[in-house]
C-alpha cells in the first residue's frame, strides 16, 4: 500500500504558457482540482489549484469591463502557480499514511509524485478517501462490526480465531484507541460469510470485549 499503487498515473498536465482561463476550463471539464505544471520532459515546475486561479474581487474593483477582460486574458498559469519552496512533492515509494501525514501537516489537498525527477502521478485527498473506503471494505458486501477490546496483546487474535472457526473472512477493517476510554482499543471489521445475527452471536462469546456497533 504505497503511494505509487494508489496515485493517479498520467495526470492531466499543462505547460506554464497555458492561459489561466484554459486551465480553469480544463479543471471544470474534467472535474479535477489540481493541475501539475510541467516543462519539457514532464519536469515539474509548479502546481495549479482552483484556489490559485481565484482572482480577488478587490483587484478588479477599480477596473471597467474592458480592462477586466484584458487583465483576464493576459493571465498565464506561470504567474499564478504554486512554485519554489511552496511546492511540496513526494516519491512513489512512501506509504500512503506518510503521504497523508504530509498533506495534513502542510494543509494541502494534493501531492505531485515524482519518479526519476519527473511527474509520475499525483495523489490527492480524493485518492486518500477512496483508499480509506477500500480499506474499510466499502466495496464488498458483509457485516461491519466495531468491537471495543482491552488494549492488550492477544485480544485481536481472539476475534480472528472466532471468525476463522466459522469459516468467515475479513474483507477490510482497521482500528485505533477508543475515544475517551483509555486502555481500550476499537477495531472495525468487515466480515463476509455470516449474517448479522450469526456474527454478533459468535463475537459476543468473547470475554472482556464489547460490540459497540454493528451494521
Amino acid at each position, binding site marked *: 500500500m504505497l503511494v505509487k*499503487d*494508489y496515485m*493517479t*498515473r*498520467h495526470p*492531466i*498536465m*499543462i*505547460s506554464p504558457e497555458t492561459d489561466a482561463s484554459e486551465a480553469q476550463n*480544463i479543471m471544470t*471539464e*474534467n*472535474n*479535477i482540482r489540481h493541475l501539475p505544471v*510541467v516543462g*519539457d*520532459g*514532464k*519536469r515539474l515546475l509548479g502546481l495549479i489549484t482552483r484556489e490559485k486561479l481565484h482572482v480577488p474581487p478587490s483587484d478588479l474593483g477599480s477596473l471597467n469591463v474592458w480592462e477586466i477582460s484584458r487583465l483576464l486574458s493576459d493571465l498565464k498559469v506561470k504567474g499564478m502557480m504554486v512554485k519554489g519552496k511552496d511546492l511540496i512533492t513526494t516519491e512513489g515509494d512512501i506509504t500512503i499514511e506518510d503521504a497523508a501525514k504530509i498533506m495534513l501537516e502542510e494543509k494541502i489537498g494534493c501531492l505531485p509524485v515524482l*519518479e*526519476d525527477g*519527473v511527474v*509520475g502521478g499525483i495523489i490527492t485527498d*480524493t*485518492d486518500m478517501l*477512496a483508499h480509506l*473506503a*477500500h480499506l474499510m471494505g*466499502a*466495496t464488498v458486501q458483509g457485516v461491519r462490526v466495531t468491537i471495543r477490546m482491552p488494549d492488550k496483546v492477544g485480544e485481536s487474535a481472539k476475534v480472528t480465531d472466532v471468525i476463522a472457526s466459522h469459516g468467515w473472512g475479513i474483507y477490510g477493517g482497521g482500528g485505533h484507541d477508543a475515544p475517551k476510554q483509555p486502555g481500550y482499543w476499537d477495531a472495525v471489521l468487515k466480515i463476509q460469510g455470516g449474517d448479522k445475527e450469526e456474527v454478533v452471536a459468535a463475537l459476543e462469546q468473547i470475554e472482556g470485549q464489547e460490540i459497540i456497533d454493528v451494521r
Partner: protein
Amino acid sequence: MNNLKKAPPVLILEDVAVAYKIRGGEIEAVQNVSFEINRGETHGIVGESGCGKSTVAWAVLNFLGANGYVKRGSIKFQGQELVGVTGEELRRLRGDQIAMVYQDPMQALNPSMRLGDQMSEVLTVHRDMDKKEAEKRCIEMLERVYMPDAANVMNRYPHQISGGQQQRVVIATALLNNPALLIMDEPTTALDVTVEAVVLDLIADLRREFDTAIMYITHNLGVVARVSTRVGVMYAGEMVERGTVEDIYKDPQHPYTQGLMRCVPKLGADKASSILYPIRGRVPPPNNRPVGCVFSPRCDYVREICHNKRPELLEFSSGVSVRCHFAGEIEADKWSPSDDILPPEIITDTSPREPILKLDNLKKYYEVQGSSLKDILGLGEQRYVKAVENADFDLPRGTTLGVVGESGCGKSTLIKTIIGLEQTTEGHAEFMEIDITDEISTRGEDVIKELQMVFQNPDSTMNPSYTVGQQIGRPMKRFSTVPKDEIRGEVIKLLESMRLGENYYDRLPRQLSGGEKQRVGIARALASHPNLVLCDEPVSALDVSVQAALLNLLLELQQEYDTTMMFIAHDLSVVRFFSDQVAVMYLGQIMEIGPANAIYAPPYHPYSEALLSAVPIPDPSAEQKHIRLEGTVPSAINPPDGCRFHTRCPRRELLPDGGAICETEMPPWRETAEGHRIFCHIPLETLNTFDPVITQKPEGSNHVS
C-alpha cells in the same frame, strides 16, 4: 482497484471526421468516429484494410500529411483539444505523453545507429538527461520488456537482432517517457505467431504496470480478443460497432461484425469451427461510398431504408453501440449462408489413392560464402544453410497437404525445390513417377505443365502491362493444351469459375483489387490443368473477408479438377478446414506430419503444441494453454545437433536427464495407427497424455486479463 474514484478518460474522440484534399474536391476518409480510452485500458480497433483505422490514429497525432485534416469533431487528450494544435505544443505532447509503435520495427529503427544510441536519444533530448544515466535507464527498460542480454543489445545495430526483439526495442523506446497514451498500429502483424504471442503478453503486462491507455489497431480479430478490454469495429470509415470484447464476440449486433466473425477460423474443438463464410463484395473505396448505410451493398439483411438513410448510432443498455437500422433485431444464430458463399462440401474419400508426389529424404542446402581469406581462396571449410532437411513423405493424388511453420523454417524452399526453382542437393523426388531432382532445364514440358504455383503476392507475380486474358491464356498457348482459337473461350470459362466474369478479360492488373488479382493468379496456375498446384501463402496478404472466399474457391476448384495441392501457411488455423494432411516444419525439418484431424489433438509434437497455443483465437471464451517458446530460431547455417528443436523445447524435461538425448541424437519417427508421424524422442504414450491446447472456458467465467 480504484474503482470508487472515476478518473477522466485519457483520450476522447467525438464525432471525428477526417478528410483528404484531392484534385477537384476532398474525400472523407473517416466519418463520425467517437470513442474514449481510459487509463490502463486497451481499446482495440479492428477492420479490413482501407477502413480508416490508421487514419484515426494519425488524426490523434496530427500526422495526416499536407492534404489531410480533421474536418469535424473534437479529439481531446488529457482534457486538451488536439485538433488545431501545432508546432511546439504538439512536439511536446508527442515526445512526452503520446507514443506510437508501428507495424514494421525495421522502419522505426535507424539502421545506421546502435540501438543504445537511438534509445537514449529519447531521454537526452526530451529530458536533458546525461548520457550515462540515460543508458542505465534504457537497459532497465529493455529488461522490463524481457530482452535477453539487454546491456549487450545496446551495442548492437538493428539488423543484428531478430524481428521480435526489434519490436521489443521499439516498444521499450516508446515506454521510456512513460506516455499516457500508446498507439499501436498493427504491432505484431509482421511477426511470427510464437513471437507475436510473447509480444502480446508483454503488452498486457505493461498496460497493467504503467497504467497506460493503449489504442490497439489491428485487422486480426484474434489478437484483439487477446489484448483488448473494449473494441471498436470499423468499416468504410465509420465505427459500426463498439463495446466490450465479451459482448462483441459473443453476441455481435452489426451484420458486418457478424460476417467478420464467420470468416475467420476459430480453431475450436471441432473441425466445423474452421468452416469459413466469406462476406460477399468488398470494402467500397472512400470516394465511392454508398448513400445510406455503408454496409448495405454487402449486407444480408438489407431493406429499403438502408439504401436511403444513414443509420444512427444506437446504444444498448449493455454499453454496446451499433450503427445499424435493425440493430437488436438481427439474430446471428438464425443466419444461414446463401448459396453463393456456401463453402463446398468436403468429400472425404478414404480409399487410398496412388501417390502423385514422392519425396525421399529430400535436402536443399545453400552454400554460404565466408568472408575470411581462406574462404575466398576456397580453402576454408564449405558451410551450408540447411534449408530443407530430409523431407520424406508421399502425397496421394487429389489430396491437399498443408505446410505450416514460422518464417525461415524452409516451407517455401521445400516447394521451390519441388517445382524446380531450386536445385535439389540430395535425396530423391518423384512426381508422377518422373524424377524431378534434375536441373529444371532438363525437365520436359509435360512435367512443367502439370506442376504450377500460386504465389503469395499477386502484385509482383503479374506482368503489369499484360491484360488478364493474356496472362491466363499464356500457359495454354505455351503448353498447347487448348487449340489457339479456343483459348479465349477457355479463359473466360476459367474466369467464370473464379467468379470474375467475361468483362475482366481485357482488364489490366492495376484495375483489380488484391483479391481479384489473386483469383487471376489462381486461374493462371490452373490454366494448364496441372496435376499438382503449389500454393505459397496465397491468402496471407488478403483481408479476412476475401481470404475466406478464396479459400473456399480453391477448395471447390480442387475438387472439380481433382488437383493435388500443397498449401503453405504460417498459422495452423488457416489450413485446418481443407487440408487432408498437415505438415509442421521447424528449421528445415518436418517435425510432425499426419491427417489434419490428428494434428490438432494430442499427441502433439512439442513444437506444434507451442504453435497451437500461440495462435490468437477470435473467441474470448476459448482457453489456450500458455506455452511460450524462449529464445529465437537458431541459425540454419549451424542448426543444433540432435533434435533441431531441443534449444527451445518446453517438453524436454519429460525425458530422462532433462532430455540429454535430444542434444546428441536425431529423434526417431514415432508413428500412430492412423499414419500420424511425430519426430520426437518423447514416446507416444507420453505425448498422448498432453491435454488439448484449446478448451472452452466454462460459462460465466469470461474475463479478460
